[in-house]
Each structure stands twice: as structure tokens, then as C-alpha cells.
């Protein structure tokens, strides 16, 4: 006789299934006796009494499930375990999806009549073709791929428009459709605020703030970064606004983009005028007057946009924690910095987050440089060398050629951080950490060791190194927001509660002699 046991830690099955499993296990050929039970002390005692207690079972905890098999030979025991395992997994076959594989969008669409959206994330050279196929098969499209020509984009968007379909992208990184986050998006509450965004992290930021303020998202449509260019003409944004206007679940519409081309801006403002629902507009660095004239609600920054949206959606203002800037903290940091420490270095993985912080700085400083500056005079000469106030978007094409996006691979930004931390003219380094679906599983943890080292080095040199960290995410995201923030705080990083606050804090820390 051989007695063998295996332990399945923290495994819970309902009693009825446990019993039927147990019965079936005892019917397996060659099995003298099979026990499937919770490994409580008392059950162990029973096993001991009948000589079936093995050391494996002895060590199991009361929350563990144990399977003990008593059979003539070791081999029979092994066989029994295999078959018992099958019994366990058989239980789950009903939920496993069919194994049919498809190679083309057309064949998949034909065989799955309920399919309604294609996510396309292949090399840009092939992406337009696949998108066309999807549209031809009446599928809405989210195109994550970049490096797609603007001609292709226009053609695809025109086709989608004719067919009444979504053509999100190219280079669309975020969307939430029917409460499902697509590609890079955060887990947020379902609600009554609809977003159309031409910028990925901008939309993410606003959706997360809306969630924090107690609001929720009905739909979040991405358009891709070029939608509001003259050539494309805002096809997707205009269609998106129309769809949200008609959507019963949507009460408030939020638009997010860089300032559109003038001709497109006109079209967008015209449609805002027609909307029966309130429209909040956050055009990063955009013009307030025109939006107001069109009857829209202008927001200068992200948090402001989210706040306006939730209030328009009917939230009670008195119950919202708006997280005002921490003025005493600003005073405190200012006293720690020497007169030489006067520059901000923003190292961002999110483009719009970078843009927002940069615009905050530009309100007070002239010498703000970036790889994404619209004014060529302030574009960095060498993207690898900072000058005065510098804001880097590591998600920009020139950094991602042949490399994963910094939201997935932190290495490029990490190397740059080490350089910036050594620079004695740096007053503050500001960084974003993006959580949510698609993103790195522990973005803060990845960079934490270098942060701590840099802090130590600065201290050794008798210099205060101020770092602001902003974690974009909700408590529902797959990563733990709380843990990420705690890690930052433990490393002595100043935690900003929003993208907007991160930008403003960075600026205020280094304002001198006011």
C-alpha cells in the first residue's frame, strides 16, 4: 500500500462539488481510498487514526484542500492524481472558450456574428489593411498601431464615417467602451460622463479624476493624435461627439486634445453649439474665449476638466475632496532648495501629462524646453541633453523607435533620471507612473532603487533632491494604487494627487523670490 497526498493551497470548492469529486475519485481504478477534504487539524487527526497522514498533509493549513490517495503502488497513486486533476479541471471546461483559431479578420467576423470591434496592434505597415478589412466587415476599429500614413488614416476614417463606425486611431492607446478598458486604460466606474479624446494619457487622467470625484464614464472614445489636424478634419471627434449626444446614458461630454487646427476647431465649436448636453473642453494650452462663445465649458487643466464634468453631471460639490495644492509644503520645499537649484526636469511616460506640466511651467517661465514643444525655438537641440527647464515625453516616437513604450519598459527614463539627479542646477524632478490595463505591473518599484540611490548621493553632497511622483490610476486597477503611492512616500518622494497638481507643484517649488 502506498499513501500519497497533494495539497492545493487556499482552494475553495463548494461542498456539493467536493462531494461529487470525492465520490468519483473513489471510483478510479486501483484506488483503495481517496480523500478530498479541507486540511483542518481535526481532519488530519482522523487521517492519522486510520494511518493516512503523510508529512505533506501534516504541514497543510486549514484553508488548504488536500487530496490523499491510498493505492497499491506508487504508479497507481500517480495515475489517480492525474485523473483527479482532470476531474477538477473538467469542472471548468464549461467556461473555457472554443479552440477555433482564425487567421483573418474576415473569417473571424464571419464565424462570430456578435463580434463588434477589432483591436489592431500590428506593425504600422500592415495595420491599415487590417483596419479596412474590419470596417468592411462592419466592425468598429481601435487601432493601437502607429507609423501609419496620414493618407491611410484619412481614407480609413472616411470609410468608417460612411459606414457609421468608430475608427479610433491610428496611434490610439486608450478607450473605454461599455465599461471595458481597451489597450491602455484604467478601471473606472460606469457613469454618465462621455469622453472623446485625441490624447491617450490625457483621457486616462480625466477618467481617473472623474472616478476619484465619484463620477463615472459612459464611454471613452479615442481618436488618435492626428484627428484634429487640418488634413484629417476631426472626423472621429465629430462622429464621437454626435454619438455621445445621442447616447442616453451620457449626460456630460468631455473633449480632450491639443489645440485643433483652426478649420477643425471651427467645426468642433459648431457642433458644441448644437449639443443639448453640456460639453467640457480641455484643449491643452487652448483658447478659452472661443469655447465659451460656443457654449462650451472651458477647462485649462485636467483636474479642472474632471471637476467641471462631475458637477455638470449632478455631483454635490460640498462632498468632493478637490485636493487643493499644499501651500505649506511649497514653502517648506522652497527653503530647502539653494538659489542654484532652479530648474524643473520633467521625465514623463505620458505625453499629455508631460504637456500639461510643461504648460503650467510656461505660465511662469520663458526658458521651457522639450522634445514636444510646438515652438521650434524651444525644442531641445539634443533630446538626450536637458537645458534649463526641460520636459521630456519618453513616449514620443523618437524615443520609442524599436523599443517598447515607457509605460511598459522603464529603462530609458531610468537612465535619464540618474543623469538629471546629478545636475546641481536641478530643483525638482517630476515623474508620472501610469497604472491600468496594459501598463507595467509595478512602475514605481522598477525605478525605486535608483531614486533611493540618487537621494542618498544628493544628501552626501549636502544637497536636497526634490522629486515629485504622480501615480495615474484607480484603486480598481490591476496594480495596487495604494502600494505604488506608499512606495513613493517611503522613498521620500513628494506624492502629487493629480497630473494637474504635479505640474503646479513642480512649478511652484522652483519659483524664486516672489
Amino acid at each position, binding site marked *: 500500500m502506498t499513501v500519497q497526498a497533494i495539497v492545493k493551497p487556499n482552494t475553495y470548492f463548494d461542498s456539493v462539488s467536493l462531494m461529487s469529486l470525492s465520490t468519483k475519485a473513489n471510483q478510479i481504478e486501483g484506488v483503495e481510498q481517496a480523500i478530498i477534504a479541507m486540511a483542518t487539524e481535526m481532519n488530519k487527526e482522523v487521517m492519522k487514526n486510520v494511518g493516512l497522514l503523510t508529512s505533506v498533509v501534516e504541514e497543510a493549513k486549514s484553508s488548504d484542500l488536500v487530496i490523499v490517495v491510498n493505492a497499491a503502488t506508487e504508479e497507481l497513486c500517480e495515475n489517480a492524481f492525474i485523473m483527479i486533476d482532470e476531474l477538477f479541471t473538467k469542472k471548468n471546461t464549461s467556461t473555457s472558450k472554443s479552440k477555433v483559431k482564425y487567421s483573418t479578420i474576415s473569417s473571424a*467576423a464571419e464565424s462570430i456574428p456578435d463580434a463588434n470591434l*477589432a483591436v489592431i496592434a*500590428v506593425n504600422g505597415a*500592415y495595420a491599415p489593411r487590417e483596419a479596412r478589412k474590419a470596417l468592411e466587415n462592419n466592425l468598429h476599429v481601435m487601432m493601437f498601431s502607429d507609423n501609419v500614413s496620414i493618407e491611410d488614416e484619412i481614407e480609413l476614417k472616411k470609410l468608417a464615417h460612411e459606414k457609421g463606425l468608430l475608427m479610433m486611431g491610428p496611434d490610439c492607446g486608450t478607450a473605454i467602451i*461599455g465599461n471595458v478598458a481597451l489597450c491602455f486604460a484604467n478601471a473606472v466606474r460606469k457613469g454618465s460622463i462621455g469622453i472623446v479624446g485625441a490624447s491617450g494619457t490625457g483621457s486616462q487622467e480625466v477618467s481617473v479624476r472623474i472616478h476619484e470625484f465619484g463620477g463615472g464614464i459612459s464611454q471613452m472614445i479615442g481618436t488618435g493624435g492626428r484627428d484634429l489636424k487640418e488634413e484629417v478634419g476631426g472626423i472621429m471627434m465629430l462622429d464621437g461627439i454626435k454619438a455621445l449626444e445621442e447616447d442616453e446614458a451620457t449626460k456630460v461630454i468631455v473633449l480632450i486634445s491639443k489645440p485643433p487646427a483652426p478649420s477643425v476647431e471651427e467645426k468642433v465649436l459648431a457642433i458644441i453649439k448644437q449639443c443639448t448636453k453640456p460639453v467640457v473642453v480641455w484643449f491643452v494650452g487652448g483658447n478659452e474665449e472661443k469655447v465659451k462663445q460656443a457654449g462650451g465649458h472651458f477647462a485649462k487643466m485636467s483636474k479642472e476638466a474632471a471637476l467641471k464634468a462631475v458637477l455638470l453631471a449632478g455631483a454635490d460639490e460640498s462632498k468632493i475632496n478637490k485636493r487643493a495644492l499644499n501651500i505649506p509644503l511649497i514653502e517648506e520645499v522652497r527653503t530647502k532648495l539653494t538659489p542654484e537649484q532652479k530648474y524643473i526636469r520633467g521625465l514623463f511616460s505620458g505625453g499629455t501629462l508631460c504637456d500639461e506640466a510643461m504648460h503650467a511651467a510656461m505660465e511662469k517661465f520663458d526658458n521651457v524646453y522639450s522634445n514636444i514643444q510646438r515652438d521650434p525655438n524651444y525644442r531641445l537641440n539634443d533630446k538626450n541633453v536637458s537645458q534649463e527647464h526641460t520636459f521630456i515625453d519618453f513616449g514620443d516616437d523618437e524615443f520609442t523607435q524599436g523599443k517598447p513604450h515607457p509605460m511598459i519598459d522603464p529603462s530609458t527614463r531610468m537612465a535619464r533620471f540618474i543623469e538629471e539627479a546629478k545636475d546641481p542646477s536641478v530643483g525638482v524632478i517630476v515623474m508620472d507612473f501610469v497604472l491600468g490595463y496594459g501598463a507595467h505591473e509595478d512602475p514605481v518599484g522598477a525605478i525605486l532603487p535608483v531614486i533611493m540611490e540618487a537621494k542618498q548621493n544628493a544628501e552626501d553632497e549636502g544637497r536636497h533632491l526634490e522629486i515629485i511622483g504622480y501615480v495615474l490610476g484607480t484603486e480598481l486597477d490591476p496594480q495596487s494604487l495604494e502600494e505604488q503611492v506608499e512606495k513613493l512616500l517611503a522613498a521620500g518622494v513628494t506624492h502629487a494627487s493629480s497630473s494637474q497638481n504635479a505640474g503646479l507643484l513642480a512649478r511652484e517649488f522652483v519659483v524664486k523670490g516672489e
Partner: protein
Amino acid sequence: MSKINDLFNQKLNVINVGIESFKDDLLAQNAEVTHLEWTPPGRGNPELIAALDILEDSAVMKKIEAANKEAVERIINSKPVLIGFEKAIDCVPGMTKTTILHAGPPITWDKMNGPMRGAITGAIVFENLAKDLEEAEKLAASGEITFSPCHEHNCVGSMAGVTSASMYMHIVENKTYGNIAFTNLSEQLSKILRMGANDQSVIDRLNWMRDVFGPILSAAMKLNPNGIDLRLMLAQALHMGDECHNRNVAGTTLLIQALTPYILQTDFTIDQKREVFEFVASSDYFSGPTWMALAKCALDAAHGIENSTIVTTMARNGTEFGIRVSGLAGNTWFTGPAQKVIGPMFAGYKPEDSGLDIGDSAITETYGIGGFAMATAPAIVALVGGTIEDAIGYSTKMKEITTTENPNVTIPLLNFMGIPTGIDVRKVIQTGIMPIINTAIAHKEAGIGMIGAGITHPPVESFEKALLALSENIK
């Protein structure tokens, strides 16, 4: 309300192309998602993608779709009926005493591989054109023998496909479209001419087939005025566990059962009839060539339809693999190098002994049986080296590159799905999925014969060339 608003009110059901982790994220959120087994079309070759784009222009596409619809309708509606057996010289168009037909696309003596040369020299001796193999070789090289592909004479030939004047042929008539197809008789066993064997035992068997076997079958069918409906019999054989390329147990039983009453009625001696039955019983392969003729008969009816991108021939001569496409009429072949066949070998042989893929038998896959109907023949999944799921997977995968299903010939295990019909050159290039072919393995040297069986695929080049030609031709 636009379709966008419809989407807002539906449960999201996503087709995910590219980055697989997006699929996992969607699954984690309880969305329905199907991840495509996607590869860049045309292996990422811009020239091929451009050609695909031309063919996908909506006006062009309409023409192609219409032409392909007609082509597959002709394949499906074809009703091939076995009407008789005659000597090649008496029935095959263009046959002469010094003509030898071979499998695959055209090839010259100097380029032929071992098994093909073995079969040809054997046939020359069999036809008494030379006294021995040595002399036969000289004759073959001399240019006095006319070599021509079976396919260009309404024929198909299994393995080397070597067909000479006095060999008996199946005669299969397409009752729907009137065209006729031919193929020679199974030699059964493994040490046979078509596998490249050519010693005296092989010649003796061929003589007996010419003198007894062929004439009895011929006389029998003369007594059967209606002929034998092969499509019906094929459908039955598939339901009995054959895929009718590498497994022919059921089909052979059905065929000989249909022939027996008439064989008994012929004037031959009991002993001779007994020899025939014993010969048929000696190997399951007896009906193998019959299904090839059926497939050829149906596919020839679909060849030459302007603008069609449907493949009507896949054939190999042991050196090259060639295909013909309906829309490029006549004998336009698109070729690539013949491939290795992967599968179990007879005891004592190693993979390096194998000759490259050879024979016209891939006509069965072109029709939709053989490897395409793998799900009907779970008994031979060892060929695909795997499980029944794999076998079923092959049949469903072939749907990705075909145009329709043939409702007359169905696969029980797949809920009576029709066999995948009408290989579309465009789909092959788009998906990168190559047709799957079940086949036998001949020894690479002349004179030895069959040493195993397995599966293989066409070379992608043949389809790429065809696609480029189509994009230039269809306007």
C-alpha cells in the same frame, strides 16, 4: 441612431489582432475576445501586399468574387461517374506509343529525381521499348521519348504518375459538364512502379494488370450501363472514416462491392476473377486513384474561368511543386521547390532516405478531401503526429483559405460541415496558411519504393507567383 450607438448598448465582442496581452486584459474584464493567429500578409513582402491591394479594389473584387462563385459551383455541382476502363493508348488524348506521362508540372529527364527516373525506365521496359533498364535509361535521355504532365492530358497519376500507352486507365465522366478524366490503376503494395521500383516483379505485375486485371475491370464496366456515381460513394467513404487520400479502407470496400456483380458476370475464368479479388484485397489503396480521377474531373470543369483565383491543380514531379489557377487558363504552371514529407516511416528507413514530395494525388486536397478532410479519419492522426483535435484543427484551418463548403461531401465530426472547397490564392497569401497535403513517401533512390507516409505543404513561392500573375491579369 448610428452603429456607434448600437455598440454602446451591446456587450463588447472583440477581435484582437497583434499584441496578445490586450486579449488577456479584455478577458480579465469579462469581455468576449478572439485573438487572431495573425501573420503579415504575403510574409510582409510589399510587392505581394501591393498585388493583394490591386485584387481587393472593389471593382476588381466584384469580378473575382463572381468568377470564384462560378468556379466553386462547378466543382460542387460536378457529378463524376466511373464509366469504364481502357488502355491509355485507346482513350487518353494525345497519347502515343512513345509518350510517357508523369506527375506534376513539366520536367525534363535531366531534372527528374530518383523515383521518377526509376518509374520511367521501368515503364520503358514494360512497353518493350528497351530490353533492360540500362538501355531504357539511354532511351529516356535520348529525347526519343515524349515526356508530358498527366495534367495536360486530362489525367492524374499518383506518386511518379508514370503512365504509358498500354496501361489501363479509369475513365471518369463528369455527367454535369461532360468533361472526362483519366488515371491508371493502383499497383497496390509498396514496391511498385509509381514509387520508383522497377525490377522484374514490378514489370510482371504490370503485365498481369495489362493482361488480366485491366481487361476484367473493363469488361465488368461494359456490363454496367449506368456507371458508378463516385461522388456519392466518396461521401459515403468519408462517413466511414476515410479521408480518401491516405486512408482508403472504406472506399476500396465500397468500390469493389459495386464492381463485384459485374466482374462475376464477365467471361473470365474463376481463377482469374479470384486473382482480381485477392489483388484488390491485398491493399487498401485500390480506390485511391479512383478518387483522384473524381477530383480531377470536377476541378477540370472549374478551370479556365476568367478572373477566378481558385486553384484547380496542385501537383508535384518530385523536383518541383506546381499549381494551376482557374483564371489563368490552359497550362500555366506556377512552381516552387518540392518539399519534404514529414511522417512515420516503415521500419528500417530514416527521414534522410525520403524522396521529396511527388505525385498528382494532391488533386484530392485541391478538391477538399485528403488532408483537408482529416477530421473524417481519426484513425490516421498518427500521420499528423498528433491528436484528434489536431486532425479536426486541420480541417477547420483549411476553411480559412477556401471559398465555400461542399454540401455534397460532409464531415460528421464537424457537425456535417461540407469539405472546404475552392482554395483561393488570395487567401493563402493573406493568411500565410498553406494547404495541407496527406501523402506517401517514396525512397529517394530509384528502384526501392514506398517507405512511409505523412503530411506536407506546397512551397509558398508557387502561390506567390500565381498571385502576382493574377494581379497583372485581372483588370
